[in-house]
């Protein structure tokens, strides 16, 4: 059993229990969302003691050096004294400059951060509704091209943040955001390499960001983007992607739709996985980006790897839903 000190209280952790789970059990309102070490919403800071390596996995070096860690991934083996992170260090302001509905349930939110805000297209940032409630969204815009940061927000049934962003937030409002993170983004240096991007739902946001970034940086290899959807109504950027394909000879767009009456290219009734394997029939030297539903991302990852893609060339961003608590 390990003891942690928080808020002047000694708290005993059961074996295998995380710091986040112990604090929530005690009734502390610690910000958290994915509880899987990805969204970084539950970042806290160590006062004294040794952090397990896993609890700092994925954090920027500057944050690691300041003793920041993720409470959801922290199972300390030795006593630890911790505090809530100084929100001001991590959060910044942004102004809403665009608020449009795309299709049935996706909001295209464009924000302009105050001051410098570094990111790669395809990374995700956290939007805070309050001190303790925040959700992560992926970036679809390109830093050097656009003077805003674009996020796609699907309305989640009973979703506290998504419904607030859809219904209450408007152009001109100030939002609190947190620095961008994640390793799913375009890496320059091999402009002739073929790129495959596939995903479901608003997994399209990072895929669009990565494709746009690649094109903006002069990528010359083929870029294939496949959006998997249940119905054509879910193809919320259909026309934009068709236009992108007609403007760039090396950009190709396919929509794999499960339930559809009229099949016209780029729409196909072939499954997402079938389309992926047909488009990338020899992916040995391709770069592959997979985003969206964790289950589908996992299936596609295995399929494309077995088809010949190298493990080190596959980048994934499974969208993990917020834990309800």
């Amino acid at each position, binding site marked *: 059993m390990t003891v942690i000190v928080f808020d002047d209280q000694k708290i005993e952790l059961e074996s295998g229990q995380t710091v986040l789970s112990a604090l929530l059990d005690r009734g502390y309102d610690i910000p958290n969302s994915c509880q899987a070490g990805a969204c970084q919403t539950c970042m806290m800071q160590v006062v004294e003691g040794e952090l397990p390596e896993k609890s700092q996995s994925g954090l920027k070096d500057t944050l690691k050096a300041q003793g920041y860690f993720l409470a959801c991934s922290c199972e300390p083996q030795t006593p630890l004294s911790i505090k809530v992170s100084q929100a001001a260090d991590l959060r910044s302001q942004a102004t809403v400059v665009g608020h449009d509905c795309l299709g049935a349930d996706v909001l295209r939110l464009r924000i302009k951060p105050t001051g410098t805000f570094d990111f790669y297209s395809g990374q995700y940032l956290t939007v805070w509704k309050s001190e303790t409630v925040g959700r992560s969204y992926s970036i679809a815009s390109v830093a050097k091209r656009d003077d805003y940061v674009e996020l796609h927000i699907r309305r989640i049934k009973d979703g506290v943040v998504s419904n607030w962003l859809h219904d209450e937030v408007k152009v001109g409002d100030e939002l609190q955001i947190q620095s961008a993170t994640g390793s799913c983004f375009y890496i320059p240096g091999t402009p002739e390499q073929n790129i495959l991007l596939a995903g479901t739902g608003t997994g399209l946001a990072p895929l669009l960001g990565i494709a746009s970034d690649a094109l903006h940086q002069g990528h010359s290899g083929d870029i294939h983007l496949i959006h998997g959807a249940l119905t054509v109504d879910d193809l919320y950027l259909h026309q934009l992607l068709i236009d992108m394909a007609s403007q760039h000879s090396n950009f190709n767009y396919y929509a794999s739709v499960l339930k559809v009456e009229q099949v016209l290219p780029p729409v196909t009734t072939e499954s997402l996985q079938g389309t992926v394997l047909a488009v990338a029939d020899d992916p040995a030297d391709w770069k592959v980006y997979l985003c969206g539903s964790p289950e589908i991302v*996992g299936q596609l*990852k*295995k399929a494309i*790897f*077995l088809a010949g893609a*190298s*493990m*080190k060339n596959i980048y994934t961003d499974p969208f993990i839903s917020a834990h309800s608590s």
Partner: protein
Amino acid sequence: MSSVYDRIGGEAAVDKAVDIFYRKVLADDRVNEYFDGVDMDKQANKQKAFLTMVFGGPNNYTGMDMREGHKHLVARGLNDSHVDAIIELLGGTLADLGAAPSDIQEVADIANSVRDDVLDR
């Protein structure tokens, strides 16, 4: 004396070997139930450490790691037949990379030396 690790081309060759070997185990019905549904990146890292070890490269693998790391699989029925299959796929991987038969035998011998640890005997 140089090792198989050096002769096949060091770390870069091991990276290639991981892709080939992992594809073989996922496609092999004798063993793939033990590899399905796990985090693929973590699994690839473990395989890299394992392949580096059996190729005689720089590693920190211990018998204890092999024992602890496979206990939950032994509980699910992991036995000699599975170890035999893995050693066979390991040989196939090396053959795909163009390794000499004597090197394949050397790697099989190292893999065999940890058999009792893997099977917790």
